């Protein structure tokens, strides 16, 4: 993990690594920081980590986390302990599109396992792996609140529900054609039933 330094030292390190929010992202971050009373801007950490992940390649490197710490004026360890607790933050590089297939009860009852196997075969990767072209990472997820429209998978902000093999074919094709990195923060989410 990142060095146990904070304050200006930490900011210098982040600066050296060349990581910096785009102007647009920085504006959003600063707006989020005003959502809380004076002195409570640490509360912005979770939403800001989502923005950082979207900005810096879909995952949180030690440098990215140090940078976030410097922006929120907190210690790097405070960022790391949060980033490592929640499942939505990737601490290792991932593909442009992370496919998260729900595998809990209702989805399992409706064939989630078959969907996972199908994607594994189709992309020639196992759960947890990324395709050679860096396009897709396959993951399993725990209940995503789509039980009535199972089976489902999430990719970035989009929910793909009532999956069939044909639908999986199509969504993989669409994502590949677009070739974009998909983030939870995307505004162009699509929810397909």
């Amino acid at each position: 993990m990142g060095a146990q330094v904070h304050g200006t030292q930490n900011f210098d390190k982040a600066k050296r690594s060349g990581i910096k929010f785009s102007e647009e992202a920085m504006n959003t971050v600063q707006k989020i920081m005003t959502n809380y009373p004076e002195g409570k801007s640490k509360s912005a950490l979770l939403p800001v980590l989502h923005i950082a992940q979207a900005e810096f390649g879909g995952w949180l490197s030690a440098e990215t986390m140090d940078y976030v710490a410097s922006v929120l004026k907190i210690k790097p360890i405070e960022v790391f302990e949060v980033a490592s607790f929640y499942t939505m933050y990737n601490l290792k590089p991932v593909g442009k599109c992370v496919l998260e297939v729900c595998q809990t009860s209702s989805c399992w009852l409706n064939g989630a396992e078959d969907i996972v196997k199908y994607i594994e075969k189709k992309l020639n990767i196992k759960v947890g792996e990324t395709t050679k072209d860096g396009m897709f990472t396959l993951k399993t997820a725990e209940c995503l609140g789509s039980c009535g429209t199972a089976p489902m998978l999430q990719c970035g902000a989009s929910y793909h529900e009532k999956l069939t093999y044909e639908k999986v074919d199509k969504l993989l094709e669409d994502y590949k054609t677009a070739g974009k990195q998909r983030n939870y923060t995307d505004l162009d989410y699509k929810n397909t039933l």
Partner: protein
Amino acid sequence: MGRKLLIHNDKVPGINTLEVYRAHGGYASVEKALKTMTPDQVTDEVKKSGLRGRGGAGFPTGLKWSFLAKPEGVPRYLVCNADESEPGTFKDRYLMEKIPHALIEGMITASYALGAKRSYIYIRGEYFYVARILETAIAEAYAAGLLGQNILGTNFSHDCFVQVGGGAYICGEETALLESLEGKRGNPRIKPPFPAVAGLWGCPTVVNNVETIAAVCPIVNMGGEEYAKIGVGKSTGTKLISASGHLNKPGVYEIELGITVEEFIYSEEYCGGIRNGKKLKAVVAGGSSVPILPTELILKTAKGEPRLMTYESLSDGGFQTGTMLGSGGFIAMDEDTSIVKNLFTFARFYHHESCGQCSPCREGTGWMEKILKKFINGTANESDVDLLWDIQSKIEGKTICPLGEAAAWPVAAAIRHFKHEFIEIAKSKKFVDISHYDRLNKVIA
């Protein structure tokens, strides 16, 4: 047709916009409360309504509100728990996605009753797109003078914010949610103090579920007594039920508390029966953590009375022969379902979601998953059933938060009612997944 108070307008085109929502009577409760009632009068109506927490615990909402400490000069907060993560539950998502203003309206009215100048909607990170919908609704409300300074020309000012989580079931526990909202790991706090005294940033806080807050609107509009006339006994009003599994018509239904379970499963108005003409085998009635019940016990109580969709009737018989209404996550399983395999998905879930603070939960959930995995691999022995029982009994009541119980109860209930399935696998040393994936199989063919 049962009465609907929360999602009666869900099919109206444009109901997600302020304009259409208001044209259908939206924000009437804000007008009524702010202009004609005192905050205490609003709380009284909620008390009279008998409304109980819709997130799962079923604690009386009015009573929870009355516990809120009100020291001079200290801000108070209302926090909406939109961290809907209990497997089988998707009602809050539906409500927020379709009618976001129903929640915003409730946030304003409830905040007025509690004297909260700020409120937060903590929504699970996976629902990021729903957070966008809420943010749009909030911006509309600000533009219309329903949020911000001097709402509708009254003295009441209020700001409402949406906060996204990072993906953690435990943040549905209210003190873990507050920790997360403060930008920390979602580790539940030791209680007391309760959030009503020391909650968000140490200030008095009320944490309520999405559906609970939305229900405040019809209660204020119609009056608590009128609301309490719907339902049976202490189960008043309407409840959103998320129906999933092997049903003909899965989805979110608003029911009047008190209809029979049989009507809910089989009537055309609701789930329309079990799909593919199969027989019902078992039901998890209130989200993954409540005890699973076999058909005969979910349709009728041990006394032979019809089981009703109420807090009391579902828990009739205790855990020996009953279950709980919980969050209303209703998962139905047909005759071909392996109860052991379904339980394995629950155990894997709880192991994944344990925050790791308390040893019985952190270690116990892992053990249970591991042992159940042996059943799935066909390598379990008969004694493993006893071991599983032993482990679950050593988690319950020994943890800071109820995740321990939530993990233990489904294991206990599956063994209690379906022990023969475990024994059969252990004896034959073979697990055959008999569950069918009809719809998917058709696609293969």
